[in-house]
């Protein structure tokens, strides 16, 4: 098959599944041949997952983690997008605030854990705050740059049709920067999902991060540890897939390089 040929329909599904099965097989036989007592085989993990399901823990932990992400992430988007739009629109304001943002941005959300516990105590709020921090800066910076990159042609056209500054932002600047904002939102969601696990490892007693740390601490249940890892991966994949759908909406698709 040369690279120009259209792949057959079954090939689109067959090869990814084949690769996943190959990976599982390698994993299985590595565990068997090394005769490890600690690391679980895929079948152990499958049994562990079934155990979580039967105890009703799996759905609860996944939903707990997702809810924390939703709160922190949506708050970050709700504050970050308007702030980013304003900073992009008023370069003078951006020049004042930007150095502070750029200084805070590289601080890992993990480094904020002690501070968040001092401020919000051990519990949900601390975790939500960490997720908020982790997604806020990427969203602000992406929105700000998105506005800056709006071609002046679009702004001039908007002004030419007599739009007030507020309408110009709502009807021209925002839709023109939306594709880039969506890229920022997608990156931020990925980071939020990374951070929720870390947050749950320290301050909370539910969620997938908690499942990992708890399974290790109480009885070295590595089958559950790996089960939680796989759940984290699958949920992250699902979140990203949703975003890819959003990018295909026709009113934003022009901003992405999709092949026709």
């Amino acid at each position, binding site marked *: 098959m040369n690279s120009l040929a259209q792949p057959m329909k079954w090939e689109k599904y067959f090869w990814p599944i084949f690769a996943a099965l190959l990976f599982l097989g390698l994993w299985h036989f590595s565990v068997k041949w090394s005769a490890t007592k600690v690391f679980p085989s895929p079948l152990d993990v499958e049994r562990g997952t079934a155990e979580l399901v039967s105890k009703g823990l799996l759905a609860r932990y996944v939903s707990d983690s997702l809810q924390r992400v939703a709160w922190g992430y949506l708050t970050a988007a709700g504050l970050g997008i308007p702030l980013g739009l304003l900073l992009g629109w008023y370069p003078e304001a951006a020049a004042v605030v930007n150095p502070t943002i750029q200084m805070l941005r590289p601080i890992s959300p993990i480094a904020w854990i002690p501070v968040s516990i001092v401020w919000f105590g051990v519990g949900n709020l601390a975790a939500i705050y960490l997720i908020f921090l982790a997604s806020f800066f990427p969203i602000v910076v992406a929105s700000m740059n998105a506005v800056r990159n709006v071609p002046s042609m679009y702004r001039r056209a908007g002004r030419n049709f007599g739009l007030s500054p507020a309408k110009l932002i709502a009807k021209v600047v925002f*839709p023109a920067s939306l594709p880039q904002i969506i890229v920022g939102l997608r990156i931020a969601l990925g980071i939020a999902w990374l951070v929720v696990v870390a947050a749950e490892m320290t301050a909370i007693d539910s969620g997938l991060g908690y499942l990992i740390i708890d399974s290790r601490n109480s009885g070295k249940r590595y089958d559950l540890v790996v089960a939680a890892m796989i759940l984290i991966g699958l949920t992250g994949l699902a979140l990203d897939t949703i975003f890819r759908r959003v990018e295909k909406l026709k009113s934003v698709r022009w901003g992405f390089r999709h092949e026709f």
Partner: protein
Amino acid sequence: MEATTVVGVRPIVSHGLKVERALRVKLRAEGVSMIFTRDSDQVRVLDNISLEVGEGEFVCLLGPSGCGKSTLLNVVAGFISPTQGQVRIGGESVHGPDPRRIFVFQERGVFPWLTVEGNIGFGLSKLPKAERTHRIAHYITMVGLLGFEKAYPQELSGGMKQRLEVARALAVNPDMLFLDEPFGALDSITRLIMRGELLRIWEAERKTILFVTHDIEEAVQLADRVVVMSARPARIQGVVNIDIDHPRDISSRRYLELRDGIFEQIGLAHKV
């Protein structure tokens, strides 16, 4: 230079009779100069430009690439204010863009996040819904985009996008159109068709048109008057009246005479 202050006289054909009529002044630029400051260097782009355009007149600004003719158009449209001089349109001095005068951009300025309908209706949000729908339908038909109402610009060809932008401009019923090399990015066949379409629309709606181009043939095919501009800093080198009726025979003697006259004025021998 004195030619620049004389308003053009356009022959109008009505029922086969050729009537010469002096035009009312629509736009008057007085001593417009533009100096840009880049890295502490001062670049003079426009040098003391005075120009008058009559009501309903089609004027081409012709000059080499980068000469400043687009800058002049942006000044006239109110997007940038001149360093010296002023522009008056219909007696009022220009202080910013205005929906009565729509700018059509060099590259495709249609909004990619809106459909064809959405783009044409963009400037019509203040109208009642029925009137808006009616106008959108009217201009979709006029520019030949019937059947593409719900299409997004990325689904259209270059020529269709350019027609869409013209329709968006016409929909708000402006008195003037500023066109900045609108057909520059199109292939030569589409460009010829688009020129015909623009003339057809102009004859139907009688807008005052200021059209920037670096294409001598294009200027002679379209304009009532061609304003020839020098290389930077742009000065008006001369104004040529194109006294041929539309549709113009582009192999007629007069056409070639006028075209070659402009070639000479620019200082090009008409040979490759």
